[in-house]
């Protein structure tokens, strides 16, 4: 076994996994805050990626991503205020159908706003070379890491970890966990629950934008397109493996699935073509069968 190749594969897996982690952490955050399964998470990624693309037409890519984040936050808050809040407290099936409807609406909106063609970051048309982040690619002892992988490791991974720490230790994190338990009890204690929930949606959109901007070029072409919607489905196996209501779980599960995908690509893909795409969903089946609470699912406190 080539140790350098194993290390390189592991680092690439972690880099991709960090992106899954960051998106899934935002997805789970919204679930924790509102008990809403956001089936439009892939469209959040898509919108984030298109916002980044639009910014990248005028600014360097790194700055474009940073400028897209506040816009994404506002978008998330608007979705919560205009769409989710009126639905809270309704039948869970109605809310699920509504978020599926939201996904279709956002999908259509991106088609109208940005057209059906795939874009190249920072380029007016797809035939031009996309803009890239400053090159951080490096090779050390036979281990090569692409610039994109390094950027996802230094941007996405710390962001996901920061969210976990903020949720545990910050004032907002405590308030969000309180609201997620009982909005009524939180209101009775003077906690501005609607604002806490809206911020959770905003953060979720920011996280999806980071993931979307980095994954945009994953299918080639160097920019966003509707292929992102399929890529966004990875959020569900990651969230389920993590326990669905655990943000740390989502981060760990994202990294794990990234690693498993990378090693599957290296060792299994030649034997079973297509297995790499299928593996996260096979993991979901196993998790649902043997550990329905996932890796870090919240254990219910029952007093007897």
């Amino acid at each position, binding site marked *: 076994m080539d140790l350098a190749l194993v290390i390189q594969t592991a680092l690439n897996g972690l880099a991709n996994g960090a992106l899954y982690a960051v998106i899934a952490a935002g997805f789970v955050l919204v679930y924790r805050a509102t008990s809403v399964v956001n089936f439009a998470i892939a469209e959040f990624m898509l919108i984030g990626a298109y916002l980044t693309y639009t910014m990248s037409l005028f600014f360097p890519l790194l700055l474009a991503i940073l400028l897209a984040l506040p816009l994404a936050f506002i978008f998330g808050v608007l979705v919560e205020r205009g769409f989710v809040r009126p639905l809270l407290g309704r039948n869970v099936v109605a809310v699920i159908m509504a978020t599926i409807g939201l996904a279709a609406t956002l999908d259509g909106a991106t088609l109208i706003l940005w057209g059906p063609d795939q874009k190249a970051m920072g380029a007016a048309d797809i035939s031009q070379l996309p803009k890239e982040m400053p090159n951080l690619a490096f090779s050390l002892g036979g281990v090569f890491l692409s610039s994109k992988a390094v950027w996802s490791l230094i941007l996405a991974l710390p962001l996901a970890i920061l969210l976990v720490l903020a949720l545990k230790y910050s004032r907002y994190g405590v*308030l969000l966990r*309180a609201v997620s*338990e*009982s909005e*009524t009890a939180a*209101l*009775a204690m*003077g906690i501005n629950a609607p604002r806490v929930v809206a911020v959770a949606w905003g953060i979720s959109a920011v996280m999806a934008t980071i993931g979307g901007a980095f994954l945009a070029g994953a299918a080639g072409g160097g920019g966003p397109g509707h292929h992102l919607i399929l890529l966004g489905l990875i959020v569900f196996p990651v969230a389920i493996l993590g326990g669905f209501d655990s943000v740390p779980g989502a981060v760990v599960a994202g990294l794990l699935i990234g690693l498993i995908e990378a090693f599957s690509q290296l060792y299994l893909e030649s034997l079973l073509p297509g297995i790499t795409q299928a593996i996260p969903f096979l993991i979901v089946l196993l998790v649902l069968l043997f550990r329905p609470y996932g890796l870090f699912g919240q254990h219910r*406190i029952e007093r007897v």
Partner: protein
Amino acid sequence: MAEINVENLKVVYRGVILALQGVSMRAGAGEAVALLGPNGAGKSTLVRAISGLLPQYDGRVLDGKIAINGQETHHLPALKVTELGVTAILEGRPIFRYLTVIENLRAAGHKLTPQRHKELADEIFTRFPRLYERRFEQGGYLSGGEQQMLLLGMALLTEPKILVVDEPSLGLSPKLTEEVMRVLDELRRDKGLTLVLVEQNARAAFSIVERVYVMEQGRVVFEGTAQEAQADADVMEFYLGGAVAGGFSEAKRYRRRKRWV
């Protein structure tokens, strides 16, 4: 100090269930009043209405008014009502079960400066040493009495002027109930709070309140001082299990016959 006035309040749930049918009550500044009554009398609905939480239960004020220090609040959202100094401890001991004791206190006192929060948290831990011992444990693992103490501590951190407490004795032993009432009384006197206490345990409530309202089926059917309530034969029969000849079935028939509405 703050006073609360409820006049001819009618509350409806889901547009059809009339839970309060013209309730009037008053708690003067620094006064302690009790709302007594059986299940379904509308006591908790009144608590929700006072604290602005009716929309959370799909309820709304149909008619009448609630005023805090003269300011009408019955159309205000819960957050605005809490800003006026009203804190409600709802029924069922609604602590945040997955948060530790310290985190529960932090959530409740989120508006305070760190310095003020520390002062009050120290006071709470002095009043309730058991909470200090269990400060890193999740609220869901506390005993019923400890959870009630935690709720009182959380309420204290909101620096209320009016404290509305719904059935604090529910599920507690007589000794713990006595302890909770003692603490409530102590807090009220120390902080100059106006206290609205909802209870089914009339004997416990009488020990700390000045005035009593008895509710039945969404109406107030008795109003008087704690002494007057204790001297009233009907109140004593209904809520303190006064002697009724003929055993349990006779008592039930007697109760049906004597319904106030």
